[in-house]
């Protein structure tokens, strides 16, 4: 049995990697992938606590999370495609219309 601490540490590590990707990378695809990583970190948390508590509900949420992630990737990629068509780029620091 892997101790819970290890799993939580891994999850935190994934979160940090994801955050770094979200905050630091310019490419929207990379940012989307980093968001997937953050999502997977939380899913890993669910699974870890589910095993630790012998409760299956965490695994149910993990499955739900994977489905949400898939949907999110679909929606995100569609948005990026649309953005690319209108702006000609998906570099995030070049898309600045979300302001005053």
């Amino acid at each position, binding site marked *: 049995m892997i101790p819970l601490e290890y799993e939580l540490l891994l999850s935190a590590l994934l979160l940090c990697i994801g*955050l770094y990707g*979200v*905050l*630091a990378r310019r490419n929207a695809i990379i*940012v989307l992938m980093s968001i997937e990583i953050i999502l997977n970190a939380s899913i890993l948390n669910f699974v870890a606590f589910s095993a630790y508590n012998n409760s299956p509900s965490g695994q149910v949420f993990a499955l739900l999370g994977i489905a949400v992630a898939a949907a999110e990737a679909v929606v995100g990629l569609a948005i990026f495609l649309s953005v690319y068509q209108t702006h000609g780029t998906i570099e*995030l*620091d070049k*898309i*600045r*219309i*979300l*302001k*005053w």
Partner: protein
Amino acid sequence: MLENEWLAWFILLLPLAAFVVVGLIGRRLSEGGGHVVVGAIAGSFVISLYFFVQVLQEGALGEGVFHRLVGYVWLPSPISGTQIEISLQIDNLSALMLVLVSFLSMLIAIYSLGYMHEEEGKPRYYAEIALFVAGMLGTVSADNFLQLLIFWEIMGLCSYLLIGFWYHKPEAAAAAKKAFLVTRVGDVLFLIGVLIIWNQFGTLRFTEIASRLSVLSPELLTIIPLLLFGGAVGKSAQFPLHAWLPDAMEGPTTVSALIHAATMVKAGVYLTARSFIFLVPAVPNVQAPFTAILVIAAIGGFTAIFSATMAVVAYDIKRVLAFSTISQLGYMFLGLGAGAYLMATELANGGEPNSAGYSAALYHLFNHAFFKALLFLSAGSVIHAVHTNDMREMGGLGKHMPVTSTVMLAGALALAGIIPFSGFFSKGEILAVTFEVGAENSVFYVLYVLGVLTAFLTAFYTFRLWFMTFRGEYRGHGHPHESPSVMTVPLMILAGFALVSGLLVYPMQGFGNLVFYEEAHAALPLVGVPIQEYLLEAISLGVAVLGIILAWTVYATRRIPAERFTRSPGGSFVHTMLTKRYWIDDAYDALGSRVVYGMARGLDWFDRKVIDGIVDAVGRGGMATATGTDVFDRKVIDGIVNGLSLETVRTSWRWRQRQTGQVQSYAWVVVFGIVVVVALVFVFGPILRLLGGR
């Protein structure tokens, strides 16, 4: 009891209505409303005559008549007799005055139709004439002093307006102002007198006052008639308030005839006659104010000769007549004074009072009104023909204007006092009474001598005027012609009166019967032609004839040229003095310009520097406060408001800068928020829990 009393009100109301009508719509009436005014005054005359006849029938021949027509109660009072009313008094004197005034006004108004025919502003003229007539009729029919004063002032106003009828002429405007201001001096005295009367008696009614006379102290009994006489001095142009009347000749000649010869200037005499209730107290144990009587007689006698001397040198035909009017009014006051003295002494001696002087003065008023109106209107006729007032540019007019010259001769004979013209009777009687009173007080002998000298001068200047105008060669320009009959007919009527008004005393059995001033003296002896005074009459007639002869020698035959007198040094000084009117006008002007203007300048300085200074300082203080408030408002209040808004804008601007549009910067904020929340929960949560004790 008078029949149809109510009609008496129409004596006043008719001219007043004419004033309103002509004043409002005179422009659309024929002759600028002249016909309406003549009609109204004629109506007044007919009604006055109706009452005069009633008064005569009721007992003027031997008894006094007194009627009071109670009218509108103006200021009611709980105490009976003290309310102030507008009421009429119809007695011998006022009935006579009403007839006299309305008759002369009517004739002069008719004459105006011709004389004023070509004037601009006729509606104004006729409206003012109508108002004047209403004022004069109201003055002589008032039953109390206040009402008398009101109508008296209406007359003063009309006199001012009519003297200034040609207001675009500076001399006329100045003369009007002078007349108004000089008479005002007298009017103020009169007003003070009325106020003292009210204070002392609580009533202003003549009859009430006469019966309560014992409440007065002797000093007040002297002061009140003198104050009333002050009003008379102003209105009747006696010395020292005589200066306005000669200048008043700047008005139309009809105005001079009506206001400044026949009627208004007589109001002063009328007022003094009414104030006999003070001068000759009818109640027992009240000593008559002999000082006041002497003052009245002395001013009258002095004015008579004083003004006659000035008439001798005047060249303006109307001014000669104006000076003559002042002089004749002086005679009337002399007669009233002498008469009052005579009556008062006889009452004091327990005898029957003799009203000789009183009735002689009013008789002279009556006669003078006719012949002076006649003289003025004749002068107007002459002026109408030759278009100048200067007698040096006249002469020889007798050929061109036979009617005017004849009627003016009648007037001149009446004024000079030649038998049988009216002036002879009344002037002789005044002088006779003055001489008679001299036995009581020798001052009256002096006044008698002055009066006789005046009679001489009167005859002289009157015929100087007549000879210079109608005899010799014509010295003017153009071709003078006789006036139209609308002017000559009134002249002829007046000439008839100048002849017969003196003889009227015979059928009336003495003039005294016509003018008793109150009931108490109803049974006075009849006074008319003084049979016993032949010598005195002969003296006054003799000096008059002498005067005419002198005038004839100097101005008609020129046997003694007038220049011989004026060339000698003493003579030329006298001539200058008289021409300058004894420098009294100059003195008044100097007084006005030096003293009054000096005071005015002082007050002006005070006003500008002190009063204005205070006002300005207050203004500046207000200004400074306002500026301060303005600065505070702009800087502080606006600063706060502007600062708030500016800061809001700046803050919002700064915050706006944070909306970069960079998704990742938003993400940073989200992360930062999460970190903060976590920090709060895990760091501050335990601390708070510790502090809360939970």
